[in-house]
């Protein structure tokens, strides 16, 4: 009798347990760098925390995962452990993830910044170039030497697009502004990136923007009394005296939307490329040195872009040589943007 009742209680507990936990959606994240870097992975992890706060969802992450085979092992391991959704947040995870996705049709795979799809694997990215256009407007309004510096990682379409958007934004408020580009071929090398920023300051740039994760360029700008524009997250803490604003990621709303769709069964594999409209990208609060009328102008433009009334890459746009690439009235297609391989007029730098 006693034994039977214990068994019954045990079964009841098990049943209770399974109803409590069965519906918990397990969501895994794979990051390319440490989450503490105040940069790219940190921004993704803020999004994960927003998902974690949802009901019936548990999340976990693996940081500093090298692209390539290491990442395949990590993604495979997550799939085997019964994760329902896996977000892989770096370009080089694309092929490994595709491989794992084929073997686990019931798991939903989300790959950031790539282009390969499967029925259970979607791509997503954010239109950070929209935020960069706005930061360009701020830089264009603040420069005295009409020369802006841009410390850039690698000449790939994502980075080129950002530089072009920044230049167009600056030219929108200050028509003959120049943007000088220095490539470092690094994503997080504070010493080299700082030195690159200094080299731009040496040739007369008075605002430094960047497309890397380290705050090295911000430090350089502050030391020389110039201005700076950050990337990924609000970088004001690294250079409070020089930081004008940053182009920032805000993944929370998107990640929550995706997880909700998967829970509801309405999720479809596709290419998600949201921007200011969904709040995936934004600009950080302005530094105190940015005048009120500039702030107002930039925020008005932000609303215009968010509503779709204004497109960043609408003609006329000329290339470095002055040749018209986009006619007046025309707008570049997403396909063109994803394959961007030329600089707009006013950018000084090579594409190699």
């Amino acid at each position, binding site marked *: 009798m006693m034994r039977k009742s214990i068994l019954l209680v045990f079964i009841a507990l098990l049943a209770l347990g399974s109803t409590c936990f069965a519906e918990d959606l397990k969501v895994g994240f794979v990051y390319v*760098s*440490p989450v*503490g*870097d*105040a*940069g790219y992975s*940190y921004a993704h992890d803020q999004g994960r925390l927003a998902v974690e706060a949802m009901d019936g969802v548990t999340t976990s992450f693996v*940081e*500093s995962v090298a692209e390539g085979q290491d990442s395949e092992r990590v993604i495979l391991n997550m799939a085997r452990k019964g994760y329902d959704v896996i977000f892989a947040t770096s370009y080089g995870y694309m092929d490994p993830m595709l491989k794992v996705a084929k073997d686990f049709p019931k798991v939903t795979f989300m790959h950031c910044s790539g282009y390969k799809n499967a029925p259970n694997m979607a791509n997503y990215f954010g239109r950070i170039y929209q935020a960069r256009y706005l930061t360009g407007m701020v830089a264009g309004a603040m420069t005295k030497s009409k020369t802006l*510096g841009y410390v850039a990682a690698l*000449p790939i379409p994502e980075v080129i697009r950002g530089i072009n958007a920044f230049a167009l934004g600056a030219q929108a408020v200050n028509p003959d502004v120049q943007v*000088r*580009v*220095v*490539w*470092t*071929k*690094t994503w*997080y*090398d*504070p*010493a*080299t990136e*700082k*030195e*690159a920023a*200094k*080299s*731009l300051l*040496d*040739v007369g*740039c008075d605002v430094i923007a960047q497309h890397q994760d*380290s*705050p*090295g360029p911000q*430090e350089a700008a502050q*030391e020389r009394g110039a201005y700076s524009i950050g990337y990924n997250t609000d970088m004001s*803490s*690294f250079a409070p005296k020089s930081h004008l604003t940053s182009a920032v990621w805000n993944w929370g709303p998107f990640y929550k939307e995706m997880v909700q769709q998967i829970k509801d069964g309405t999720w479809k594999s596709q290419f998600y490329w949201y921007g200011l409209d969904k709040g995936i990208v934004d600009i950080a609060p302005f530094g105190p040195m940015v005048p009120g009328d500039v702030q107002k102008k930039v925020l008005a433009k932000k609303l215009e872009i968010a509503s779709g009334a204004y497109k960043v890459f609408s003609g006329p746009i000329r290339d470095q040589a002055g040749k018209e690439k986009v006619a007046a009235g025309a707008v570049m297609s997403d396909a063109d943007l994803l394959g961007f391989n030329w600089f707009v007029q006013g950018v*000084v*730098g*090579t594409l*190699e």
Partner: protein
Amino acid sequence: MSPEILLSLLAATIQAGTPILFATLGEILTEKGGTLNMGVEGMMLVGALAGFLVALHTGSPVLAFVAGGLAGMGMAAVHGIVCIAFLGNQVVSGLALTIFGTGLAGYFGTRYIGQTAPGFDKFSLPILGELPVLGPILFQQDALVYTSYLIPPLMWAFLRYTRWGLGIRAAGESPAATRAAGLNVLGFRWAALLGGGILAGCGGSYLSLAYTHLWTNGLTSGRGWIAVALVIFAFWKPGRAMLGAYLFGGVMAFQLRLQAMGTALPSSILLMLPYVLTIAALAFSSWRGHRTEAPAALGVNVEPSE
């Protein structure tokens, strides 16, 4: 190139060369004593992290710099235990030290990525800083750069004129003769190795305390290897180490400025320049037959007496 850009390029050259100078001098001292230590990169990384952590927690850059040196010495001691005490293969142990140092610094340092620590800032030396041309290049730097100016002459004099310096050189040239003279060969080898470790650690902490005030995994990004190569370029002479380190730092700073000025050369080629220069310098010094200037017993282990 305008004069202002040239001055600033040369000032940047000194700064970019300083961490390499510290490390190269350290490896020269170590090799003069007969020990080959290929673990410079690992010692620099651990030194950089130790310096950064002490700066972060105590707020004292001077203490942090000392800690960086001591951490480098600790790493060198590992090499010493393997090679001097247990007669292990010096090349293998050195390579292992680099891998170990990279992992160790990554393990303890990852959580500190993205934080800023206090460090050394630039200040102009009185009188010297006002000099035309030389002032802005050499004497408007940080305290660690000024320190690095003093080490090559001191090390030169130490190796040439002091009992300890002569003992270290003897231990590296002819351990048997040194022992026959009644000197403690292993003691001199240990001293050279540990001293070299301190300098390598100092070079690493220059990166996290002065060049930037940040830590990241792999902060040294190959500078330790450049130092190992520059020892040969320098013919094991402290003075020539300065030339090598600044040459390398200069090319590094120059290629970035060339990009900033708007050159048509592809950046991939420009970024390669410092490394091409290193290979060329090595080939040149070997071709001139200077390889024979290496300490005769370099890399050869010495059996403990009795």
